[in-house]
Each structure stands twice: as structure tokens, then as C-alpha cells.
């Protein structure tokens, strides 16, 4: 398994950790984790991409889907910024401007999102 997926709860948030390589092969597991996270966090969802090494459009679709579902529920989404590998895919698709990115998981869990989200 190239993708490492887990769902935990912390400080009233559901934290979905997506590590490794997020592509068409790992999309079903990632999508299931997002669905579970939305239920467990009651709409308060953190996507932790700290350990994400690779993402392509199939994986980006899961992240967009999470944003859409959180918006539908009137919930809140925070996304912990990935390392350098996936950043180009974020930049060329405009997702880095669209997703509420924060620098660290601690920032995501802070009440103010670590002093506000960081844009592109």
C-alpha cells in the first residue's frame, strides 16, 4: 500500500491523515476516510497532508470533494500543507488558493487556525 490513511479525533476535530501517494489506486480508501472523518468530526474536518509525497488529479478530486461536502454541511475544513513534492500539483490547479491551508497540525487544531489560514 503506497498510501497511508487514518482517521483520529482531536480537540473536537476529526483528523484525516493522508500520507504517501494519493492516486487512482488510493482514492477509494482516501474518500472513505474523508466520509468517516466528516461523520466523526460533525463537519469539523482537518486533512493532514504533512506526509503526502505525491498527488495527481485523481487525488486532488478527493480534496475538492471534501471541501464541497464540508461546505454543504456548513462545517469547517482545515488542510495541513503538504511538503515540496505535491506543491506543484496544488499550484497549477489553483487548489492552493482554494483550500484553507495551514502550516502544521497544531495550527489546524488551534481555535483561530494558527492565526489564520495561509494562502498561496
Amino acid at each position, binding site marked *: 500500500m*503506497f498510501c497511508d490513511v487514518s482517521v483520529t479525533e482531536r480537540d473536537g476535530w476529526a483528523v484525516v491523515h493522508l500520507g504517501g*501517494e494519493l*492516486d*487512482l*489506486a488510493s*482514492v477509494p480508501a482516501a474518500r472513505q476516510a474523508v466520509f468517516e472523518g466528516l461523520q466523526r468530526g460533525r463537519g469539523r474536518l482537518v486533512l493532514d497532508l504533512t506526509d503526502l509525497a*505525491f498527488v*495527481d*488529479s*485523481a487525488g*486532488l*478530486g478527493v480534496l*475538492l*470533494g471534501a471541501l*464541497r461536502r464540508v461546505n454543504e454541511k456548513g462545517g469547517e475544513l482545515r488542510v495541513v500543507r503538504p511538503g515540496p*513534492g505535491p506543491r*506543484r*500539483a496544488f499550484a*497549477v*490547479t*489553483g*487548489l492552493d*488558493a*482554494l483550500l484553507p491551508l495551514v502550516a502544521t497540525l497544531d495550527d489546524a487544531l488551534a481555535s483561530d487556525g494558527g492565526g489564520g489560514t495561509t494562502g498561496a
Partner: protein
Amino acid sequence: MPEVVLEIPARPEFLALTRQVVAAAVSLADTVSADRLDDLRVAVSEATTNAVEAHAQVGSADRIVVRCDLASDRVEVEVVDQGGGFDPGSVGQAPAAEDEDRLAWEHGLGLSIMRELTDETRIVPTPDGTAVHLVVYARPPARAGEDEADREGREDG
């Protein structure tokens, strides 16, 4: 020019292997920077994902062929499927990222990413499917002359 050819079953679990083999072959050739290799890795993943999905749509059990030409001035990767063909003109332009239609359009995002991350992306219909050519130059062709001039300038100074 040296060529590396990989044949994979048309299944998603072989995408990671495809990226690894292409990246390893390109690293051996040592013609493009690490950043450009990251870009190519994503583009290859997009092309191969499209091929896997095309095969699934027509129920093809054939293999997908991934060919890497490692020239001295560029890397050219060709992903050949037998998935019945694909019309790049039907995908259209990307709606604005915050537009709701963007989500429905996601499926065509791969083509847009390939074009953005390579120097050339060509979609060529074949009798049985599609060949996608992805080209990354060792140095952007439009700027090659400037770089040369810059270097000469520095050597003079």
C-alpha cells in the same frame, strides 16, 4: 537514443510502479532537474490514469505501454493505450477553481495538468486507442539561447 519500455496491466495499482520506473530511468539519464522530474512524474501519472480508465470503459484486458526516450536534450514519454480513443477537444476549458462546475469537470483536469507541467503534450489517436506524448526539455527551448548568452557573458566577466 536509449529507450526504456514498460508494459503494465491496465489497473490503478500499477500507477505507482509506472511513476517509479519512469522517474528512475529519467534520473539515470540525468538530463532534467529534480523539479522538472517531479512535474513529469505527475504528468505521467495523469496520462497513465487516463489510459487505465479508457481500458476499463471498453473492458480491455490489453496492457498499457509506457515508453521513455532518453535523449541528450530532452525526455519524451509515450503512454499508449488500447482503450478505444479519446477526444481532447471534448474536455473544454477549466471552469474557475471556485466554480461549482469545476467539480463535475474534474475528470478532464488531468489533461490540463499534463499541458501545464510538460513542455509539450500531444494526444495522438491510434487505430486502437490513444498515444499521449509528454516532452520535457533539459532546458526550456525558448530560453536556451538566452541561457547560453548569459553563461558566455559570465565567462567573459
